[in-house]
């Protein structure tokens, strides 16, 4: 009876939650096969060990959630402040995601660490579809990947298109100097007509918008400005100093790239922390539920064996008396 209860509960627990079914099943079933049929006193050691490990995991996930929450606060402020860096550029140059150019460089921003929900796979997925949209005959599209996790995911099927990977960006808190040195390195090493930055824009702790920002090379800006539109208004600005328009546009494009990259890296770091917070929150809740179920199983089994033993003692005693 005790065995049956354990088996029933165990099976339900296995079906409902699926952490590592093979290991869990073999642990419980080997216990079952080691006890001969009709043996008294089922060992509850397995359940007890499992409870202990679940409790430890819960402790870890709770701690990770706390860490993410406290880091998030600081990064969020910086992120919101950094939005002021790219907004003037968008006001001046506009955003042209649909521009059709030969050399595209997709800059995928991801995190170095995992356990943060689906934000890395989102930006990888968006990058891949952007790759499909921008690639074609006589066109060249390359990836530049920031962060370990995006690199691992892109290596699987598009490693021939990766041009550069960058990691360990977040060892120190992100700052503009660091990102602009990085932007400098990227600009010097890739040839581009349009840079497309893919990242998760931080909306709220539970909402992230995958976003694409497009930065055009000076030549393309000039071409587009002749075609008119938002960029056509550039000529109406009065320019001080002796530089030509091409020089100014080149300086602007480079500075725009570093500003947008800085904001994108911050937004993504912020989204990462938010996603980690909610992921860790739900995993500690799941661990709690699992712990409840295991505790119930454990207590029921123990109670069942006690009841059985009591029944046997009483019936034995009454048999002696009778």
């Amino acid at each position: 009876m005790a065995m049956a209860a354990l088996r029933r509960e165990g099976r339900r627990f296995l079906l409902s939650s699926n952490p590592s079914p093979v290991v869990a099943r073999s642990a419980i079933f080997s216990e079952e096969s080691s006890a001969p049929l009709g043996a008294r006193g089922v060992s509850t050691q397995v359940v007890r060990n499992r409870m202990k490990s679940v409790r430890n995991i819960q402790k870890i996930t709770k701690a990770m959630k706390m860490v993410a929450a406290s880091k998030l606060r600081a990064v969020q402020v910086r992120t919101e402040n950094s939005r002021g860096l790219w907004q003037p550029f968008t006001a001046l140059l506009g955003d042209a995601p649909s521009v059709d150019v030969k050399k595209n460089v997709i800059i995928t921003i991801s995190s170095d660490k995992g356990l943060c929900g689906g934000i890395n796979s989102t930006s990888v997925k968006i990058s891949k579809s952007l790759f499909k949209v921008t690639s074609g005959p006589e066109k060249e599209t390359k990836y530049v990947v920031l962060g370990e996790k995006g690199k691992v995911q892109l290596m699987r099927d598009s490693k021939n298109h990766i041009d550069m990977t960058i990691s360990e960006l977040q060892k120190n808190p992100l700052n503009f100097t660091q990102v602009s040195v990085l932007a400098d390195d990227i600009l010097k090493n890739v040839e581009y007509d349009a840079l497309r930055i893919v990242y998760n824009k931080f909306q709220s702790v539970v909402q992230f918008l995958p976003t694409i920002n497009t930065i055009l090379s000076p030549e393309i800006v000039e071409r587009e400005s002749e075609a008119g539109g938002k960029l056509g208004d550039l000529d109406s600005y009065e320019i001080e100093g002796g530089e030509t328009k091409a020089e100014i546009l080149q300086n602007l494009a480079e500075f725009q790239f570093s500003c947008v990259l800085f904001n994108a890296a911050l937004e993504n770091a912020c989204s990462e922390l938010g996603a980690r917070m909610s992921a860790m929150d739900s995993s500690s809740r799941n661990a709690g539920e699992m712990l409840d179920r295991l505790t119930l199983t454990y207590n029921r089994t123990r109670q069942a064996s006690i009841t059985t033993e009591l029944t046997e003692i009483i019936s034995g005693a009454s048999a002696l008396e009778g």
Partner: protein
Amino acid sequence: MSSAVPFWRAAGMTYIGYSNMVAGAVRKCLKEPYRSEAVNREKVHFTISKWSQGKPEKPSTRTDSPEE
């Protein structure tokens, strides 16, 4: 500043590199305690590796903090 442009361009610098250098010079002019605060904001650390034919080359680290 407008007269400086052709020179740093000729030296192969980008606008970002130039403005970073200038910003570094400005930070060096600060007095303590503001100075160490500002220096903290310009720490650079990342690892970069170029890829060719689907294989990563040896990564190089750009850092200005001492190696542990």
